[in-house]
């Protein structure tokens, strides 16, 4: 990257210093709310909304976390809702990876009459945002009696067009000779997929799994429609309810937020090289 700056003139050195200051300030500003969340989760409510605010807790109150998990009415519903989020998000991550590889493989390695049309049809669904179909989907769910069930929360997200696209692009480079060799050896097509293709879909599959997990971890709208009973809610819906309650404790609110963020932060920092690398990032914000 040296040449991008080239030989520096005095004005440029000044400009570069200004740029560095701007960058540092931006990073600090962006991090402030996160530091606030972490700090406030250990503070008594009175200290959180105090002027001037003190960044380091003066009195530590880890009991916030107990309150966060127990809930305002002490029924420990958050634990159940965290479990729901884990179940729903991981099921969707697994099924998205599996089904997208299946369909992506079919589109990448089999030329058949209409395969182009199938591909275009699936890609076209990217133009149908979830927000525009949620009401009909909700009606279907009601008709099938799947409200307040895991099936209702999971099924509409079993796979997505982006996943199919990602897996197809990845598998298209898979050497056809290996597949043909397996066929000559008498390996059946499902087994080729299971034993050879799926096993070698590693990096793309991992990226897709993390993205799908994160996306569902964040999903508020659909669980809000489908899960009316407290026991079936997921974390985002719980957070809204917790925060909107009159007697909500600010410290406990931040503890709720920290708990909700831990799994995705662990995933992100564990796999940051994939996320900062480029291609995967293109879809991380997709909802």
């Amino acid at each position, binding site marked *: 990257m040296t040449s*991008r700056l080239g030989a520096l003139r005095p004005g440029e050195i000044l400009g570069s210093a200004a740029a560095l200051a701007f960058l540092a300030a931006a990073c600090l500003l962006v991090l402030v709310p996160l530091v606030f969340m972490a700090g406030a989760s250990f503070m008594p409510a009175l200290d959180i909304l105090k002027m001037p605010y003190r960044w380091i807790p003066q009195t530590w109150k880890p009991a916030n976390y107990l309150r966060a998990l127990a809930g305002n009415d002490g029924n420990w519903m958050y634990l159940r809702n965290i479990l729901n989020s884990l179940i729903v998000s991981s099921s969707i991550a697994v099924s998205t990876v599996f089904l997208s590889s299946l369909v992506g493989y079919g589109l990448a390695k089999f030329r058949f009459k209409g*395969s182009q049309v199938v591909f275009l049809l*699936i890609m076209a669904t990217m*133009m149908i945002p979830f927000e*525009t179909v949620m009401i*009909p989907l909700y009606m279907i769910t009601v008709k099938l009696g799947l409200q307040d069930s895991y099936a209702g929360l999971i099924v509409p997200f079993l796979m997505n067009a982006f996943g199919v696209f990602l897996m197809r692009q990845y598998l298209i480079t898979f050497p056809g000779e290996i597949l043909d060799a397996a066929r000559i050896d008498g390996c059946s097509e499902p087994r080729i997929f299971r034993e050879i293709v799926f096993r070698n879909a590693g990096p793309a599959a991992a990226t897709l799994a993390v993205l799908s997990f994160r996306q569902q971890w964040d999903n508020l*709208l659909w669980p809000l429609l489908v899960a009316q009973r407290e026991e079936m809610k997921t974390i985002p819906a719980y*957070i809204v309810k917790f925060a909107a309650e009159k007697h909500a404790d600010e410290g406990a609110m931040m503890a709720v937020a920290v708990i909700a963020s831990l799994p*995705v932060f662990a995933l992100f920092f564990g796999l940051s090289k994939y996320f900062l690398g480029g291609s995967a990032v293109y879809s991380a914000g997709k909802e």
Partner: protein
Amino acid sequence: MKPASTSGVLERNRSRWGWAFTAPGLVFFGLFSFYPILNAIWTSFFNKKLLSLRPPKFIGFQNYARVLGSEDFWNSVRATAVFTTGVFVPLFTLSLLLAVFIASRKRFRRLFQMALYSPAVLSSVVAALIWLLLLDPRGLANQFVNLVAGTPGVDRRWLSDGTMVQVSTMIVYVWKYVGYFTILFITGIGKIPESVYEAAVIDGAGPVQRFFRITLPLLRPTTVLVSVMILIQCLKTFSTQYLFTQAGAPVGPVNVITLNIYNTAMRDLNLGRASVMSTLLFLFMLGLTWVQLRFSRRDEVEL
């Protein structure tokens, strides 16, 4: 040499397996994408009510007339448009600027990227929740602004004033996504050949000139992508507005289209009218995607 008939059988076999592998996709997207969107369009012509026992009646364009004639809908269009504009300009500018600065750094690039990207990892609801406390009358936002502006003790009414609550939702959004789009821009800048810059430096081009004459024009595929992505994301915004209004902020100013669809269906139980808004949103976004496709095609040809 294989006899022709064997390869014909193989061909047919392959084609059958091709269908078998793609069939789950066809079934799934048929059921959960194509059927619902057609259903939404269909329902928009009926006076369908949730929980109502009476069979829905076909009423032609009456739902459309009601929606398009209601202040509530146009308020949502306004709220969405204001939000989108208010997010687009700072988000685009900031992330481009930050990307250019980071790309020109030799060290700590990864650190900067990580720091800026970290809010994007959070759930939207968590992001909104943090800001709910920061924007409290006694919260840090007031303290910070008063410190900078030298106006001690002034409450900006971030969550209670109609204008300010819109600004607040924009702040949350820009904060959450600035790192994400910065990384997209960095990726784009990385694709610009180094030699172009070297030539420009030899010709005596300064950093500002390099930015406007080289980076910006050659970055066009990324700028188009980022623009459309920001627009589409903003049109679908929901979580922040939902949490803020649930926590007591006034609904009117931030009643964006998705929030309105949700409330029309779930609170007013009026599926017909909710479907009208869904259909209009769909058509609008379809238009946007079309624009995106057209532009990205042209870029492919140019490069």
